[in-house]
């Protein structure tokens, strides 16, 4: 029954989106992290989605799920603030913060949670359709 594959597809999307939410959470948590003694502050991370074909090897069909291929680090330089009294200031009196952009992360979070909801709804619909299919000929 090909409908059962929907759970694999929507499930792969749900787990990919939850990974994206995890990364957003870790970015937001580190939004105000300053550079340590080695001078490297936290770098924002982004998940990269990729289409993953479903089904056992050798008989893959057109159904496409999704998976996280890599988690890429954002290499733009972090925000630098002149604050000579700060304990983490460098020789020039500058403090390097992480390069997380909180506005971008919030937008990312909204998008991820909407996609998560959509896929849950897909699963619920597929479940109710399958239950009704199992009741063919009854009642």
């Amino acid at each position, binding site marked *: *029954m*090909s*409908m059962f*594959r*929907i759970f694999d*597809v*929507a499930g*792969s*999307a749900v787990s990919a*989106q939850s990974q*994206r939410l995890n990364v957003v959470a870790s970015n937001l948590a580190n939004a105000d992290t300053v550079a340590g003694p080695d001078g490297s502050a936290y770098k924002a991370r982004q998940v*990269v*989605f*990729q*289409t993953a074909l*479903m089904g056992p090897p050798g*008989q893959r*069909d*057109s*159904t*496409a*799920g*999704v998976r996280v291929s890599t988690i890429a680090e954002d290499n733009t330089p972090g925000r630098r603030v002149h604050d000579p009294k700060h304990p983490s200031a460098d020789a020039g009196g500058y403090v390097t913060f992480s390069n997380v952009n909180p506005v971008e992360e919030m937008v990312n979070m909204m*998008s*991820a949670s909407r*996609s998560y909801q*959509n*896929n849950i709804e*897909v699963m619920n*619909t*597929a479940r109710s*359709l399958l239950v*009704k*299919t199992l009741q*063919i*000929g009854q*009642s």
Partner: protein
Amino acid sequence: MIPRLSDALDFQSQALVLRADRQRLIASNIANADTPGFKSRDFDFADALRTATGSTQAGQGIADDILQPGGKSAPRLRYVQPNQTHLDSNTVDMDRERAAFVDNAVKYEATLRFINGSVRSMLDAMKSHNQG
């Protein structure tokens, strides 16, 4: 006798299989709504059903062919023409996919009811007159 019983259900079951296929396809479009470069796909249901049931009259065992992807009666997939372009060249239009998903789910249920209806009328026909 048995073929006559199954023929009545054959058309609806082909339609049901195609509806399930389309449901799966739209689910995979929705799952890939955020995948860069993913192209949304769909198939023309009327066309696919005509192909599937048209070949039923010519030969037998077609229902197995439809379930098998890549078989000669598997529905031909087409890329959806996007209304708006995305920077990451993803062509999934969430509004369209949601609408298609709900539409297909309702029609799947309708097909189920048709099947239930013919099963029930067949059962009624099998009952003897004094059974109620």
